[in-house]
């Protein structure tokens, strides 16, 4: 006997009514994509659960991968047997003796299939009694057991599962629409992207690149971050905006203190064009209130004025340290701290206005007409797409490695 499948429990999406189907279908698609190279496994789904039939594959590496899939509340390794007492006993014994560091246990039976003759309570006693008399060193503890063995008797069979392993939670990526992530290369924006994905958002990223003021490596860093994000979102498009010309114009025409404010406004205008073209309905940024000059209440107010697209700011109320923690946990941190300047830091004035006003900024912008340059910039956008299963580099170097 061995664990033959992984049971996946849905998170919040299980509360959905009519459109649950749509959520389940998306989750199914995402799990499949995650496990694309496991040829032997089968994935089955219904309204309440998803099952990965292992067909001889090792469960552990599959579990590890699925921990990155949003929409999964928890997993358990499971054994499926027929609705037949002897088989259930054997499976429960297997689950108990294969749980690590376990001395006490509890059996919780749920009889979903009421045609099964023995009720849940009686079944707990039957199965508990069986393992107690066939094993040594285990005790029952109904209040605080080391492991709780769940026995679910359903129409299609009985599922025996032991420890619950936590999933990533959230909603399946692709169920709540698309957002355009302003990806700079710092610590914050990838975390913001990750968190919005957690709420089911599919991300496309936009990055402003100003060669030669910013280096190829700064761009590469952003591409690496985007690539890393595919772990959670499967596919990511990155729109690389040639921003040098606009930035030079801003630097030349706008008083230094307002340069940063205007730059951000222009970025949003460019982003809005991309969003319009791609049918994207919102922006996501890594702004955290009060962190830097562009993220004060006044700055947000002044910058936000140029667009009426909703801006999702998952980090708005987080401390830097909390953001760093997430960044490390999702393996972004090491990439984020590579020391290359991005366009936000190269042209930053020594003393940017922390309290810009809408009146002032409009007054300065009146003197410059950005329309043509914005159009030209948008036309020059280069788009790269990453898919989790094969990234460009792996192809590029695969003959060497």
């Amino acid at each position, binding site marked *: 006997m061995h664990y033959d499948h992984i049971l996946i429990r849905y998170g919040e999406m299980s509360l959905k009514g009519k459109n649950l189907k749509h959520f389940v279908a998306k989750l199914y698609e995402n799990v499949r994509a995650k496990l694309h190279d496991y040829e032997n496994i089968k994935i089955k789904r219904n309204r309440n659960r998803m099952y990965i039939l292992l067909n001889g594959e090792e469960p552990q590496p599959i579990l590890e991968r699925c921990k990155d899939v949003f929409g999964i509340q928890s997993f358990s390794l499971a054994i499926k047997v027929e609705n037949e007492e002897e088989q259930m006993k054997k499976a429960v014994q297997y689950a108990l003796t294969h749980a690590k560091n376990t001395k006490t246990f509890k059996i919780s039976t749920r009889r979903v299939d009421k045609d099964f003759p023995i009720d849940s309570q009686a079944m707990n006693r039957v199965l508990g009694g069986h393992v107690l008399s066939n094993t040594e060193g285990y005790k029952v503890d109904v209040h605080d057991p080391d492991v709780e063995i769940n026995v679910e008797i359903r129409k299609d069979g009985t599922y025996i599962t032991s420890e619950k392993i936590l999933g990533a939670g959230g909603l399946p990526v692709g169920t709540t629409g698309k957002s355009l992530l302003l990806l700079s290369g710092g610590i914050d924006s990838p975390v913001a992207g990750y968190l919005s994905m957690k709420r089911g958002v599919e991300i496309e990223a936009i990055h402003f690149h100003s060669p030669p003021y910013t*280096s*190829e*490596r700064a761009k*590469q860093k952003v591409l690496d971050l985007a690539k890393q994000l595919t772990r959670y979102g499967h596919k990511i498009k990155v729109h690389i905006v040639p921003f040098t010309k606009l930035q030079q114009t801003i630097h030349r025409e706008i008083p230094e203190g307002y340069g940063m404010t205007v730059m951000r406004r222009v970025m949003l205008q460019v982003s809005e064009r991309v969003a319009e073209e791609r049918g994207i309905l919102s922006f996501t940024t890594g702004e955290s209130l009060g962190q830097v000059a562009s993220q004060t209440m006044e700055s947000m107010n002044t910058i936000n004025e140029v667009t009426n697209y909703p801006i999702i700011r998952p980090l708005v109320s987080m401390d830097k340290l909390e953001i760093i923690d997430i960044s490390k946990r999702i393996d972004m941190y*090491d990439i984020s701290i590579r020391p290359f300047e991005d366009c936000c830091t190269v042209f930053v004035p020594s003393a940017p206005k922390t309290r810009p006003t809408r009146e002032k900024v409009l007054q300065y912008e009146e003197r410059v007409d950005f329309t043509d340059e914005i159009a030209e910039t948008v036309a020059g956008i280069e788009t790269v797409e990453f898919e989790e299963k094969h990234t460009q*580099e792996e192809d590029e*170097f695969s003959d*060497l*490695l």
Partner: protein
Amino acid sequence: MIYFDNSATTKPYPEVLKSFQQVSERYYGNPSSIHAFGSEAERLLQQSKKQASQLLGVQSDEIVFTSGGTEGNNLAVKGIALQHQNRGKHIITTSVEHPSVLEACRSLESLGFEVTYLSVNEHGRVSVEDVQKAIRENTILISVMHVNNELGTIQPIEEIAMVARQYPKLYFHVDHVQGLGKTGLDLSLIDLCTMSSHKIHGLKGTGILYVKRNTSLFPLLHGGSQEASYRAGTENLPGIVAMVKAIRMTKENQKNNMQHLKELHHYLREKISEIDEVVMNTPSESAPHIVNFSVPGYKPEVVIHALGEEGIFISTKSACSSKHADESAVLTACGHSHERSSAGLRVSITYDNTKEEGARFIHVLRNVLTELKEVMG
């Protein structure tokens, strides 16, 4: 030629040499240079690290590229000792470790550290109980090799890891130089692990030290911030790429040709044991590539030279300790007599050695021993 000295070093895979040459020609930029050419080298470095981490089942920031096994062992032992001496100054190791661990420990003794050298049984195996008993309040490091380089004995690493785990203050280092590609090892159980490229058909001068996340080390080499400051110095990118490729190819061999290796090993061990003059030193449960035996009364050098004349290359004790006295420290540690310990010979094979080579070796060995018997026996 029959090359049966694969625990000393191995023949590089042709594909590995090709990668080495290509990287040397095309990606000679310094990964730390900020221009695009350096950037390309850096990406290749990162990709190599990523692939190495996937092959070894660890995170890519847990891979530190080194110059080989000796450096890896020194960095692990001295690096932990110097960095964490405030917690305690006691180290536990075994009497059959590679000299790069033993001598590193001895050097620390001269700096005021205390080292417990655990003895082993007749098979060269350390007991988990002894390890447990040796742990003290001030123990900061346990260093035990996975596969013994002279005998092929496999140490109970997982069990020791379970013991070590109960003492969060101490680190557990494993010298995996002989085990890589031959026997499995779950790196998640240990804190530091040494690997070397030229033992798995890569090139000399490259190795990996696995360093578990959040483990700080006092570097042996200070300088630039390469390898997350664990090891300064411009990266040996061609060697690194070659090593990662060698790991991949060796792991493939391990997956597909293990049965062949085991059969050849079993054959050699059986046939050698059948020779009257021979005492077998390698235990029946051992790594699948080393057979160590003694021919008491026969000078091992003479046997080696006689085999060499027939184009067969094996070795006495490990190449690293061969320069010292005529006795094998490992065999002595197993409690064997001087006569047996000073007559040890080691055959070490790899995946592409053939059954025919094995048979010819046995034939020649028998002849050589018969001829020498007249003089020495």
